[in-house]
């Protein structure tokens, strides 16, 4: 259990948060500038907040009232940075072993062989970081943090610098970390897809304040949180331009499924990331007929997440990827929705993810 209370006045920005992170993976969820990284750096001891109290499993890391500020090297925190921050002059093996010597002798620690096996980095041990891909670096960074025998793991947007394929490569390792390592994890993200997949609990942040905190299903399914807490809920699909049609439509293809968009000025074959907002998806148990919508994705229900209000978030696995739909609980009950039920997702609108193709927009 991690308890955090912080107050920090900065020019044009005030951080004032209090939250608890229970066992499992807690996501600090919010837009850029919501104060996520400031919080994580304060927990790690990389900054000195003006006022606050941070307690990890009964150990006081910070208590400005009592004049306590533990320096970072005594906090026993495993920090996985966005950019990896591996030591460039050391082999992967020495990077991994760096923190182990500082752990107190009696603490239970992860076995190097087990961590290497879990992260699939056995073949990289004698290389240096300069010779690794982005995804490999991040896996080594996870291992390095883990092997320092931390009592708390911090991860600051560890996937943000990676492309979609690398993200898909790393996400499962965080799932294993959450499920197999008995250490609380504080994970910073502004990507709804990561939150949905990883979070045990969520602390939604906005403008330096906690908007809502609680179990993931509760916070994410809360219609009050999603639009305000971050970019609203929605799935991201990776597609590429298939062809341009004479009627002004661009045909994309995602996992073999065709999708139509108003003219997109990109070359054939160019990758495009699409966002489908959960509230732009209508679900149907039958293949719709005589409907004006062009984009219909068949799939099966993966998960239902009831919210506090009348809404339910439905996660649908389709050939194009996972799609989220936000419908009322009344509809879900009437349609008999449950995991495994086959459905059709009617997509009212598809937006091209802002910013770019490839990286996560900042």
């Amino acid at each position, binding site marked *: 259990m991690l308890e955090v209370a912080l107050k920090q006045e900065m020019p044009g920005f005030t951080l004032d948060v209090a939250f608890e992170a229970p066992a499992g993976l807690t996501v600090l969820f919010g837009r850029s500038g919501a104060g996520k990284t400031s919080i994580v750096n304060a927990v790690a001891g990389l900054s000195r907040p003006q006022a606050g109290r941070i307690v990890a499993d009964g150990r006081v890391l910070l208590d400005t009232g009592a004049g306590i500020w533990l320096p970072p090297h005594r906090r026993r925190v495993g920090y996985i940075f966005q950019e990896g921050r591996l030591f*460039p002059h050391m082999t992967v093996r020495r990077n991994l072993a760096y923190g182990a010597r500082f752990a107190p002798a009696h603490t239970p620690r992860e076995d190097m062989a087990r961590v290497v096996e879990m992260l699939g980095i056995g073949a990289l041990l004698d290389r*240096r970081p300069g010779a690794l891909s982005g995804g490999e670096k991040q896996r080594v960074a996870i291992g390095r943090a883990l092997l320092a025998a931390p009592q708390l793991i911090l991860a600051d947007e560890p996937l943000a610098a990676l492309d979609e394929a690398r993200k898909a490569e790393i996400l499962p390792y965080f799932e294993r970390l959450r499920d197999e390592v008995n250490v609380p994890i504080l994970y910073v993200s502004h990507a709804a897809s990561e939150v949905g997949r990883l979070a045990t609990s969520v602390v939604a942040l906005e403008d330096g304040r906690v908007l809502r905190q609680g179990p993931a299903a509760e916070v994410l399914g809360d219609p009050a949180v999603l639009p305000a807490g971050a970019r609203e809920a929605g799935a991201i699909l990776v597609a590429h331009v298939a062809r341009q049609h004479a009627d002004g439509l661009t045909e994309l293809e995602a996992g073999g499924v065709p999708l139509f968009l108003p003219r997109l000025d990109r070359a054939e074959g160019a990758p495009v990331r699409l966002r489908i907002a959960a509230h732009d998806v209508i679900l149907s148990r039958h293949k719709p007929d005589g409907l004006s919508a062009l984009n219909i994705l068949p799939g099966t229900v993966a998960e239902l997440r009831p919210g506090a209000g009348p809404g339910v978030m439905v996660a649908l696995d389709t050939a194009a990827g996972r799609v989220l739909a936000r419908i009322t609980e009344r509809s879900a009950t009437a349609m008999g929705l449950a995991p495994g039920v086959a459905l059709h997702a009617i997509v009212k609108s598809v937006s091209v993810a802002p910013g770019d193709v490839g990286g996560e927009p900042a």
Partner: protein
Amino acid sequence: MTDWLTAAEWEAVRLSLRVALWATAVSLPFGIFVAYALARWRFPGREVLNIVVHLPLIMPPVVTGYLLLLAFGTQGPVGGFLDRVFGVTFAFRWTGAALASGVMAFPFLVRAVRLSIEAVDPKLEEAAATLGATRTWIFLTVTLPLIVPGILAGTVLAFAKGMGEFGATITFVSNIPGQTQTIPLAIDLALETPGGGARAARLAVLSVALAALALAVSEWVSRRVAARIGGRDA
């Protein structure tokens, strides 16, 4: 092989090497410390320290030598103290030549090392801290290995400066064969002696050769270090 230089000239070469080696070796730890302080710490007097370190680069060497004479001469406050307490004398000794060379070479050393420290991402040092390393340990295992190329470059510059220092040395410790007469001072004397041209030329050629050798060695080592840091398994 010793035939082409006279015994006195060999003496000058040996003395130059000794002076430059001592000057470099003794100023290296101080230089790294000052460079680190200037690059990483914010403290009152930082700008003053920066200026003092760089003064020998800007001032006329004669002035530096004169100030050294005032401070480190046998009658000077520092020189007198060191003489009485530790029996270390600088005036008119090779130690004085080494001191003058070290002071003149110091800014070169600090500049090279400071640049390389500033090129080390402080985020790596932060990462090491979160893994449990103390500041000293971080410096030894992260910062220091990454600035080896800068330290080498600074060392070679300081060594070359030490071999060639003239103005401050001759002002501070005069031109005494066997004690303070390094290669440049021997060349100066040879040029003022009728018929000394050939001697001056031989010593000049030797100076050039030593300088070139030092540069070549440092380049080679720097490349190896850079290759290792760059990720290729050297």
